């Protein structure tokens, strides 16, 4: 009989039985026809049932039928303990769902290879060493002329490709009036070929078209952008758009699924590197460099060659550095070139979130372990309640493997149900996290497909989880000795010991989760509580471009226009808004002395900017309309401390030397309060505020082509005024365009996205961990009281007091909680050291940081133990003894 017939037979037991019985009946009928006595014939045939069993074994795949029976039996068991089963399924589902979500995020951002032909051959170039100011630094930006030299040096080993950082830029497809944003990336023409891509439509620009600056204004659209913006219109080829001062022509559409090299950012428009105005600048590092290795080429010799070329280029450039301390220059020149695999792409999001996501993954995994320990304890408890049943099965001849299978089938059912619910959670959870780290200006786009990678991870997790919580109880249950079990149980402590160690482990993991969550929350609080030095509420910032430059008077005119809008209480102009990530730094020399190692930071602002921002003037005066750069400056308190040794600087001066060697003499006219400049974390930098109005080296007043209006409004939510202000800013005078409107508060909040995410998820998982550990502890204690009812009853009968009974119930468990806490503290301290970079002004060894999670866990323990103790105290000896 074919195996599948037998397999099918396993699910049609009744039919098989009927056929067998029919054959047996015909046998007896034949015997009677043969002349035998009907009664005798039947007796001789023996038990029909036994015959049937013996024959069935041959007809039905034994294990499969056994499995089916186990599933039916397991389902009955799970239904009988409905509450515990549901609790087990839900807690496992939460843990599995979180694990899969974490995996989806980590995979999408850090692991998944790029959709190019040979991702394993991609390397990313960066420089490591010390920054100008002597701090450890890694930097992956390059200047194009340096890239050109390296490309030559790498020939034969690799094709080097330049890729600018993807930027949300303003473009116009139709008329200038309708601006839209697109993610633009300048890339080497060789990229498409190097990555083995082929166009969906039209063609790519080539390496040849990427040699002469400004010669080939071609653009390639991403497949997604083509779909979203043009509904896959084939006539898009040949269309033109304007980006800044340039008109580009669309020549092709990229392949489906390719959206650049930066996980987290979807590039929509690819332009030739030679179209970037900085491609001829030696002093602007504006692109990343990737190497596509030639098969078989050695990495190290090439790295050494590139390192030499890069250093040579920088050394040549450094000859023109003026006004920088020798130390700074040495720091800079001693950086060395490194090559890292770029299999999964390169992006700022990866750098920002690698540590955070990895640690979240660890937290989630710990929660999973807690859930598994819980379910294992539950199963052990159930299994020992079934010790008699198991003993009976063993006595009847059931093999050990058969019993293990039986219990494992039950675990598998629990785990599968949990996985199904978990999959639903994971499906929703990962996109929510992506939304949390995303914002309007910088939308995070992560592909989160439910493909074989995710499925494989989920399936592997399911099996691991099942074995983790199922195997041990299964082995223990099946190891039952029939004699002792039927007599009323073996040494009860042996069974409980394992359960207790699991409690210790749960407490330790729980502590670790709660502890790090606490550190994340504290980090977030510290960052949010940092003094800003100004009032961000009610401030709206309008980032503007003026394509061919506009005279300062025109900027003032637009500012006046904005000031006339009802509800506006102040308007000022600056180069860019505080904390949008931009920075400008140069060397400082005081009193004609040598240049400082520490650099000074700069921002150009108009008069009344401090007042508009709500930044307090400490001494001296504000800038005036008559002030022009170079000339008067206002500095912050840190600047005074760092460069003037805390002496009142008003009336003193310093020299600022730019990268281009241009030296400016500055007179300090005022001091303002400290405020974070580029971001919150790096602490307060020494900042000098220069006049927005400036003269070039020849003394001609410059026409800025970009700037920011800072608008203070009386509105509670300044966003409500956005449309009106936009219209006013663009309409007051021709030549101005609004590129971006944000509230200052959004810029501040944007600084803490990662910290807020970690704090929120940390608290969430801490709550889950606490809940799970609490439920687990409750279950174990409650069960042990039920199990020891007789013992407790007898003790009460012989006069034990309440305290003694409670002690009896709690002693072991509390010892285990203590062991768990100590282990948790050790783990926590070790872990905190390895994730220090995620913290801000938080010390893991701070007694408070350790005491709070301990307290929280002890409170949870107290909650979880009360019902069991109460139950123990209510035990009436008379009832127990009567029941016996």
């Amino acid at each position: 009989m074919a195996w599948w017939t037998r397999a099918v037979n396993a699910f049609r037991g009744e039919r098989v039985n009927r056929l067998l019985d029919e054959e047996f009946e015909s046998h007896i009928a034949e015997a009677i026809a043969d002349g035998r006595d009907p009664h005798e014939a039947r007796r001789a045939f023996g038990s029909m049932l036994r015959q049937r069993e013996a024959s069935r074994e041959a007809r039905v795949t034994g294990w499969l039928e056994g499995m089916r029976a186990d599933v039916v039996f397991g389902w009955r068991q799970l239904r009988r303990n409905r509450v515990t089963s549901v609790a087990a399924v839900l807690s496992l589902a939460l843990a599995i769902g979180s694990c899969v979500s974490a995996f989806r995020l980590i995979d999408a951002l850090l692991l998944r290879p790029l959709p190019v032909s040979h991702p394993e051959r991609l390397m990313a170039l960066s420089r490591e060493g010390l920054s100008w100011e002597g701090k450890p630094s890694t930097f992956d930006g390059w200047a194009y002329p340096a890239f050109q030299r390296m490309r030559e040096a790498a020939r034969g080993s690799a094709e080097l490709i330049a890729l600018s950082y993807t930027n949300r830029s303003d473009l116009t497809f139709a008329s200038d009036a309708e601006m839209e944003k697109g993610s633009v990336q300048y890339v080497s023409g060789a990229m498409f070929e190097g990555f083995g891509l082929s166009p969906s439509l039209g063609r790519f620009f080539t390496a040849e078209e990427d040699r002469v600056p400004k010669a080939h204004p071609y653009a390639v659209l991403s497949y997604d952008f083509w779909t979203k913006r043009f509904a896959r219109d084939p006539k898009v080829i040949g269309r033109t758009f304007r980006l800044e001062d340039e008109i580009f022509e669309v020549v092709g559409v990229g392949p489906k699924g390719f959206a650049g090299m930066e996980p987290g950012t979807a590039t929509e428009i690819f332009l030739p590197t030679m179209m970037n105005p900085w491609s001829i600048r030696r002093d602007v590092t504006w692109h990343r460099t990737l190497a596509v290795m030639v098969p078989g080429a050695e990495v190290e010799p090439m790295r050494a060659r590139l390192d030499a070329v890069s250093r040579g280029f920088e050394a040549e450039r450094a000859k023109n550095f003026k006004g920088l301390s020798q130390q700074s220059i040495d720091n800079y020149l001693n950086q060395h070139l490194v090559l890292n695999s770029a299999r999964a792409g390169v992006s700022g999001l990866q750098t920002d979130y690698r540590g955070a996501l990895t640690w979240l993954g660890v937290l989630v995994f710990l929660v999973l372990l807690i859930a598994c320990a819980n379910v294992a304890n539950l199963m052990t408890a159930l299994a020992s309640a079934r010790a008699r049943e198991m003993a009976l099965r063993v006595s009847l001849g059931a093999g050990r493997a058969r019993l293990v299978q039986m219990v494992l089938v039950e675990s598998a059912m629990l785990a599968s149900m949990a996985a199904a619910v978990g999959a639903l959670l994971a499906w929703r959870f990962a996109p929510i996290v992506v939304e949390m780290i995303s914002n309007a200006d910088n939308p995070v786009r992560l592909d989160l497909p439910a493909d074989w990678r995710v499925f494989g991870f989920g399936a592997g997790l399911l099996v691991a989880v099942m074995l983790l919580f199922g195997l041990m109880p299964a082995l223990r249950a099946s190891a039952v000795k029939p004699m002792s079990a039927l007599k009323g149980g073996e040494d009860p402590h042996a069974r409980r010991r394992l359960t207790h160690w699991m409690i210790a482990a749960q407490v330790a993991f729980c502590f670790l989760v709660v502890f790090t969550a606490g550190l994340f929350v504290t980090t977030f609080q510290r960052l949010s509580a940092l003094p800003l030095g100004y009032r961000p509420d009610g401030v709206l910032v309008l980032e503007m471009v003026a394509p061919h430059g506009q005279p300062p008077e025109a900027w003032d005119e637009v500012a006046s226009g904005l000031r006339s809008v009802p509800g506006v209480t102040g308007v000022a102009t600056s180069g860019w808004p505080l904390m949008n990530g931009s920075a400008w730094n140069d060397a400082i020399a005081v009193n004609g002395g040598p240049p400082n190692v520490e650099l000074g930071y700069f921002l150009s602002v108009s008069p009344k900017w401090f007042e508009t921002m709500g930044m307090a003037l400490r001494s001296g005066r504000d800038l005036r309309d008559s002030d022009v750069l170079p000339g008067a400056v206002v500095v912050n308190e840190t600047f005074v401390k760092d460069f003037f040794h805390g002496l009142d600087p008003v009336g003193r001066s310093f020299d600022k030397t730019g990268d281009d060697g241009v030296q400016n003499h500055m007179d300090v006219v005022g001091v303002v309060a400290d405020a974070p400049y580029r971001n919150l974390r790096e602490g307060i930098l020494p900042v000098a505020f220069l006049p927005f109005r400036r003269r070039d080296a020849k003394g001609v007043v410059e026409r800025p082509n970009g700037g920011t209006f800072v608008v203070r409004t009386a509105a509670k939510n300044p966003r409500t005024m956005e449309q009106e202000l936009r219209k006013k800013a663009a309409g007051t005078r021709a030549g101005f365009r609004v590129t971006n409107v944000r509230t200052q508060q959004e810029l501040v909040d944007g600084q803490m996205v990662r910290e807020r995410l970690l704090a929120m998820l940390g608290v969430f998982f801490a709550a889950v961990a606490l809940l799970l550990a609490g439920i687990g502890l409750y279950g174990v204690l409650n069960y042990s009281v039920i199990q020891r009812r007789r013992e407790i009853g007898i003790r009460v009968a012989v006069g034990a007091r309440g305290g003694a009974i409670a002690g009896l119930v709690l002693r072991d468990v509390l010892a285990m909680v203590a062991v768990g806490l100590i282990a948790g503290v050790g783990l926590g301290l070790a872990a905190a050291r390895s994730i220090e970079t995620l913290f801000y002004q938080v010390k893991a060894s701070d007694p408070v940081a350790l005491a709070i999670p301990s307290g929280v866990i002890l409170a949870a323990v107290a909650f979880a133990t009360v019902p069991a103790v109460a139950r123990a105290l209510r035990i009436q000896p008379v009832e127990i003894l009567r029941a016996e």
Partner: protein
Amino acid sequence: MKKIDSMQGSLNLLVLKLLSRRPGLHGYSIMTAIKESSGEVLQAEEGSLYPALHRMEESGWIRAKWVVKESGRRARTYELTLVGKKQLAVEESRWEMVSSAINRVLLEA
């Protein structure tokens, strides 16, 4: 739970041999045929015959079909398959070997 029937090896041989000579026997007639042709010495019990039949069926040595006999009764009859014929040859030669070996031992002792 599986009981190894000590007679099993020879029972298989007998059943296969019988079916090779007279295909289309049903369970009861196999039983009586063994009894008769052995001169009432060998007796197959129902308790081991049917499991043996079903096991051989599972192994693909014999195949079964339901037939309606002249008397009008339905019966499940068995016949040898190609695999069964080969198996019969194997078992026969094994039996020859074993029995001649036992004979030699008896003669020498």
